[in-house]
């Protein structure tokens, strides 16, 4: 009797463990199948069509060129870009409280943005101008590598490094992993600090990480990112497919000398700066 009970308990225990482990195994082994269906998905949310003739072999990779010469001449443009982003994404305003700050696109001096560049004998324009800082939507993002739940991931169709707030467990590993300080955490419920709601976009809840999403939701409607639209007609921020040789952004990159933040880290940022 006693022996049988033991045997039963052993089998029950073993099968319970197997039951817990099974979903993980199934998910892991099914990974390749998932990937293939992803790859076949149509490239939605691509850049506002500029008639790209042929996609590069790696598909669409959205990127941005920020022309600091324009922003230096019209510093108000950057403020406008920031506030349109804040409105579009229901970003809370903690009135300069460094602890709680939520930042998607913000201003910082050259020395903070380009920490690998020399700051000796900078021209006056570079010294006096605030640079635009945002998520670089890296081609090889360390935050995605670090995330234990795939709550942050690279969208296959367009290269955007996106967040799934539903899945984020708030471990903040991505914040430690991001070499650009682009990620913010909701230390408390952000809603009371959101000035005005954009009813087309959610707010966030406390306990999740957030950052710039290259306006994935606006691209889907055929609009440009909010910050790009705010600077429309000035050429301060140009947005498009880095893999499309015909795109406006590529023509600028082919013509102008641009720099990226911390290129030595191998993250391959998709945001370029003309200084």
């Amino acid at each position: 009797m006693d022996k049988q009970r033991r045997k039963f308990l052993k089998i029950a225990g073993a099968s319970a463990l197997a039951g817990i482990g099974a979903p993980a195994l199934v998910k892991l082994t099914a990974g390749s199948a998932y990937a293939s269906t992803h790859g076949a998905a149509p490239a939605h949310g691509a850049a506002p069509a500029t008639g790209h003739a042929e996609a590069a072999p790696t598909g669409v990779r959205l990127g941005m060129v920020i022309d600091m010469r324009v922003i230096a001449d019209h510093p108000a443009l950057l403020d406008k870009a920031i506030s349109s982003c804040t409105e579009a994404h229901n970003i809370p305003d903690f009135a300069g409280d460094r602890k709680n700050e939520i930042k998607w696109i913000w201003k910082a001096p050259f020395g903070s943005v380009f920490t690998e560049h020399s700051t000796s004998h900078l021209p006056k324009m570079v010294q006096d101008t605030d640079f635009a800082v945002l998520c670089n939507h890296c081609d090889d993002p360390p935050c995605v590598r670090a995330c234990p739940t795939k709550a942050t991931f690279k969208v296959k169709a367009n290269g955007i490094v996106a967040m799934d707030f539903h899945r984020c467990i708030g471990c903040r590993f991505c914040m430690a992993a991001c070499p650009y300080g682009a990620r913010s955490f909701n230390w408390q419920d952000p809603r009371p600090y959101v000035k005005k709601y954009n009813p087309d976009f959610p707010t966030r809840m406390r306990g999740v990480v957030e950052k710039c999403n290259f306006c994935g939701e606006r691209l889907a409607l055929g609009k440009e990112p909010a910050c790009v639209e705010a600077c429309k007609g000035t050429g301060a921020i140009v947005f498009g497919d880095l893999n499309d040789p015909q795109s406006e952004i590529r023509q600028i990159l082919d013509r102008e000398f641009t720099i990226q933040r911390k290129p030595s880290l191998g993250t391959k940022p998709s945001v370029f700066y003309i200084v």
Partner: protein
Amino acid sequence: MYNKSTIIPGLILFVLFVTFPVWFNGLDAGAVPKPEMPPGGQKQCVLPAAEMRASHMQLLNEWRDNVLRDGNRVTVEVDGKEYRKGLQMACMECHTSQEKFCDTCHVYASVKPYCWDCHITPEAAAKKETH
């Protein structure tokens, strides 16, 4: 049986305790909730009502993964009207009130989905703007 005098009352207490919600409510499950129909008068949902009632949560999860993860934002057409996939962008276009629609059943079934921790109801949006 050993310790009859403690085991049997113990078992009775256990059963009573476990069935507490049943007898405490007098064997009555209470009035069945009546969620409010869309104030705009729309009659057609993206799926038949019975299916929506049973599995709207699966559909929302599916939409979420479609939109966020797979970049598949193909719209849903209902009665000639296009809806984007999303709680805020489709469901609450018609079912404008969380309190009068969503909550009625959720409260009854004692489930607490965290949808509205992030998603903004038309009511919440209107409230904020008047501030």
